[in-house]
Every structure is written in C-alpha cells, then in structure tokens.
C-alpha cells in the first residue's frame, strides 16, 4: 500500500531501531510528541525514553552528544527540527563531525545520521523555510543527502544509519505528505537505497535538468509541459546526494543532451547549482551547445512570509519552462 514520504522516514527509523539496538533518536519534541511533523510518531511508546530522547532546546549538544555517542559505538540519529535552527550545531557539524576522522588519522569516527527538516513554499516564512545545504555540501568529511522520492526517503535513511560516516539527511517538509509522490516501499534490507549516485528520473536527449528535493516535482511538470509544447525530450537528473557529488552521472547526461539547466530552491549564489555548473564548464565544455542556466531563488536573505513575496521568491514551473526554452532555442 502506498505510503507518504514522512511515513517512509518513520518506517526507516523503526526498522533500523528494531534491527540494531545501538540506534537511538535524540532531538527536540521527537519523543512524547513524535516530532514537530510526526516523523518519530509511535517510537517513544515502542522504544522508550532511553532510545527516543527528548533533548533540551540546544541543537549544539543534540549533535555533539551524538558525535560522542557514535565515537563510543552507538548509532545516533539526531534531529534538527528546522534547518533554520541548525546554526547552534555549526561547530559540531563542520569542525567536529566533518573533521574527527581526518584529525585522528582515521582512528576515531562518528557515524551519526542527522535528520534535518528543510525547505520552503509552505508559508513558513523567514525562519521556517530555509535550505542551508550549501554550508554542509562545502564540507568534506560530511555526506549530505536529500531524497526526493518515498523509496529514497526510506532507503537512503536506512543506508545512512548503516554508513560509517557522519551523514546529513535533508528531508523537505513540503514532500512529507504530498499525495502525488506516495508509493509502495519494500521492507528491511530490500528497502535499502544507494547513498552515492544521482538518479535519472526521466530520459531525454535535448536538454538536462539537474535538481533535487521538492524541485524534482517542478522539473517533471516543466519537462512535460515543454515536451508537449515543443516536442523535445528533457532528461532529469535527481542529485539525491549533495556531498560528495556524483559528477560522472551529470557529465554523461550533458554529454548526451548538450544542454544543462540547474534547478534549485536555494537562492542563486553558491547554491549547489554553482558547483554543478562549474564541474560541467570544467570537464564537459566541448559537449555544451548552450550556456548553463540556473533557475534559483533570488539572492535575498530568506523566504518572506507574506504570500505574494513568497511566490515571487520560489522557483516554479513557469520560470523553469522559460529557462529551458532559452537554452533549447539557443
């Protein structure tokens, strides 16, 4: 039976906690309440307060205590309620988790899986809509993933918990209950999904859209519309992983289509699209028949709350189609 993105997350957590009693959850409101959005629903009742810890209101210790627990052999799955509030954990993530293995010459490691709820378009406003993936995609030592499908939501979370590295798992709040993406998922190990490769979500030959997260839905709608309008075919690459990037899959797609558009919810400057554009301009220059365009939010500090401001901010199908036309007709 088809389940939602957030149910897939809950299932993954439950299965991994049943499989390995070293796995535990810690975060704000993850226990009694089952999470601000319900991702940990029922786990407190099933596994108890010892393994589903309602932490103090302090993201720094949520992550750094997880690092220490992971060093000591446990498999913590901490949660950041909103990506907007990840800043208190910035040192724990970039200076400790990302660098512990490196600074100890491989003798000390911290396999944590940090779930981060992110993304806009829900009217959440300046501080309940942020992305902030760039800060961490920039940090070697961290694995950063952002599933866009229900199967990935479950399978990548399970794989992340089993991965011997610190993993940041960005879950888009607007995908949590989107009916259109609901799908069946497998159980146990069969549900595991790869943690390192991009996925081709749609085959095409005239242009490539690289995107991730909720924007995958926008990309698919834009592709359909323009294929219908202009009779072209668009390839869609779902990044899935933001760090370390799977350059090969992207380069191969561009080598085939000769045109690239990057679609990101983040604002333009130094979003993940900048890196993808740079990789292609560096390594697949000869394959390009048009400039690499980026459809992104404008460079403003955050997503304003008032409806007209938010919709002006968000990348959408219309903006994507327009940009696609520009490179197709170039």
């Amino acid at each position, binding site marked *: 039976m088809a389940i939602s993105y957030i149910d897939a997350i809950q299932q993954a957590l439950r299965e991994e906690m049943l499989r390995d009693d070293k796995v535990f959850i810690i975060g*704000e*409101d993850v*226990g*009694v*309440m089952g999470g*601000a959005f319900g991702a940990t629903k029922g786990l407190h009742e099933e596994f108890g307060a010892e393994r589903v810890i*309602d*932490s*103090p*209101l*302090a993201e*720094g*210790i949520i992550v750094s205590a997880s690092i220490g627990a992971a060093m000591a052999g446990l498999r913590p799955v901490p949660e950041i309620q909103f990506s*907007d*509030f990840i*800043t*208190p954990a910035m040192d724990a993530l970039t200076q400790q988790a990302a660098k512990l293995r490196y600074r100890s010459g491989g003798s000390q490691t911290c396999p944590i899986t940090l779930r981060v709820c992110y993304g806009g378009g829900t*009217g*959440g*406003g*300046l*501080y*309940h809509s942020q992305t902030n993936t760039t800060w961490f995609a920039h940090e070697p030592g961290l694995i950063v993933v952002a599933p866009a499908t229900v199967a990935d939501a479950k399978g990548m979370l399970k794989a992340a918990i089993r991965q011997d590295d610190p993993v940041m798992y960005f879950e888009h709040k607007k995908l949590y209950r989107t009916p259109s993406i609901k799908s069946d998922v497998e159980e146990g190990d069969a549900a595991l999904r790869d943690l390192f490769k991009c996925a081709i979500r749609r085959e095409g030959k005239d242009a490539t859209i690289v995107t991730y997260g909720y924007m995958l839905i926008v990309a698919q709608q834009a592709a359909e519309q323009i294929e219908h309008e202009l009779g072209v075919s668009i390839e869609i690459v779902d990044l899935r992983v933001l760090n370390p990037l799977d350059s090969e899959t992207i380069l191969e797609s561009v080598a085939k289509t000769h045109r690239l558009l990057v679609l990101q919810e983040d604002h*333009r400057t130094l979003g993940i699209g900048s890196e993808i554009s740079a990789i292609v301009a560096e390594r697949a220059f000869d394959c390009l028949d048009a*400039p690499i*365009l*980026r*459809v992104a939010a*404008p*460079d*403003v*500090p955050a997503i*304003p*709350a*008032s*409806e*007209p*401001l*938010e*919709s*002006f*901010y968000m990348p959408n199908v219309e903006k994507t189609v327009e*940009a696609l036309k*520009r490179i197709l007709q170039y």
Partner: protein
Amino acid sequence: MATKVREQAAEAAAPSKNGSSLISDEKLKQLYSTMVKCRVLEERIRILKKQARFKGNYYAAVGQEATEVGTTIDLRDEDTIAPSHRDFIANYIKGVPLNAMLSQIYMRSTSPDKGRSSPAHCGYAPLNIITPASTIAAQLNIGTGVALANKMKKNDNVVVAFSGEGSTSLGFWHEALNFAGVQQLPIVYICQNNLWAESVNVKLQTRVEDISTKAQGYGFPGITVDGNDVVAVYRVAQEAIQRARSGGGPTLIECKTYRWYGHSEIDPAKYRQPEEVEEWKAKDPIAAMERYLTGKRLFTPEYKQQIIDEFNPQLDAAIDFAEKAPLPEPIEALDHVYSFDIRDRELHRTAYHPKY
C-alpha cells in the same frame, strides 16, 4: 555577591526595601485593565486564526499576561524590549498602534516589517522593540548588545529581554547573561517559565528547580516570582529596572506561569495533563487581580465590562484596517537586503547577454 532566589507576592506588594512607595490605585487599575485588553486581543486573534482570516501561525501568551504587563508597562520609549515569539502583546503594552500590530498578523504592507516576518514576530523601531528572529534566545544576545551601547553612551535607558525556560538550555542564553554580568549591563532578563517548551517539560531542560538559580553562575541577582501575580511581577521588575538604570547591573527574573493553550494555534498540546491545565487556569492572573482589587474596593464587573467595551471597537477598527490593507507587491521581496537597492541586478542577472 548575595543572590536572592525567591520573592513572595505578598512581600513584593508591600513597600519595597528600596523605599519606593506603595503602588498607586491608578497604577493597580492600569495593570489590570492592560491585562484584560491583552487577553481580549489574543483571544480575538485566535478566533481570526480559526476562521482562517490570516495565514501563518500564532503563539498566544494567554495566561501569561501578568508577566508581560508587569514587566513592560512602565518602560520609556527609549527603553528597548527584546521579545520572543511568545511576546506579541508586549508590543501593545509598550504602545505600538493596533493598526501596526494587526497588519503584522495579516502580513500586510502596512506591517512594521512590510510583511516579511511571521504574524507573532512583531517589532517596532520607533519604540525600540527588536524585530525577533524565530531563533530561540537570539533576541537576548542582541538586546545585550543594545544594553552595552546604552552603557557606553552613558544614558540611563534599560533593556528588557524576554525568553522562555526552554531557551535557557541554549548556548546563546549563557553567552548573553555571562557577558552582561562581566560588563554589569543595564538589562533585565525576564524568563517566563511556563513549564513547557513545545512538548518538552522543564524537567527535561534543566535539573534545577528555579531558573533564577542560574543567575548565581553569572554573579548577579536572580529572582523567582509568581508570574501570575501582576503586582508581584511589577514590583520585582521595577526594582530590577531601577537597579539597571542606576548602574547596578543586570537581573534575571524568573516568572513562574503557564500558557493556557498549545505552543501555537496548530498544537493540540496532548502532551499535557488536563488536570495541570485546569489547575493553572484556576490561577488566572486576571481573576487573581480582580480579587485583589475587590479587596481594595477598586473592582466591579461593570468596570471590567467598560474596559472591554472601550477596547473592542478599537480592535474591530484595527482588524478592519489590516484586512483592507494591501499585501506587499511581489517585487518587494527584493527590497531591504542591503542599504542599497538590488532590484536591477536581480531582475537582470539571469538574462544571458549576447553582447559578450
């Protein structure tokens, strides 16, 4: 240095040791009437929310009015307040026009922030009210910086900074209070201990009974007061504000109180026992003040009705103003990023320039 840990309401209501006189009848009535208006204001906002007449979330302080009123009511325009998501009504108490506040609720172009922040996150520059981020406790640290500036400018303005008990777990909270202690800044930290941080009970935030104990680690007074006793809160706050104005340094005031409703309008608050809620509703700060005033022959039901009847039309007018006010223009999303305009750059940067 001696640190006071508990102050009883009774004691607080009596003439205070700094020799300040008893509170005048006028002031007592003002404390009461302001609480009533705040209650009416927030209960109305909750109805508007249920009617889906505005988007976005709201965090009601219903049940905590004594704390908001007792700490804020006598501040000067030049004094700064640093509110959190919970302290929307502190804006009203400090004197922000209802039209501006309701425009904030409705996120209209007429709001103090032109529709950028969420409904409850209201600031107001003309009255030195810091527009809050959602980041818990961040307002304390900025407020602490304002206090540093006041000290450097050698004026006698104070800062009143609000936070909840959950906020005390954050490093920000610690860095702010520790710095204020070292610098002996003119600031009063109001911690509204309403027992809950969303679904998390205070027992999971800290091992201490009284948040005010934490002041001992910073070397300035910490006081716990009955946050539902507006007279006690007022007295304690006045002493702390006086101390701050006269260069006596910071104070941490813990107000033990309770939020009647969920964390926000979308929170059913299933994590709380109904008994607990009932117990605290019985300690309604407004009803308590009515009993106190009745004892002083200062209260009648007619008096209360009169306050409400005078306030409602003002509120209706403000709601009407806000609902009729225009939303921001989409393009305004590009404004107020820097001191200079970026519309042009943003509107044209994606365009491909064949001129090259």
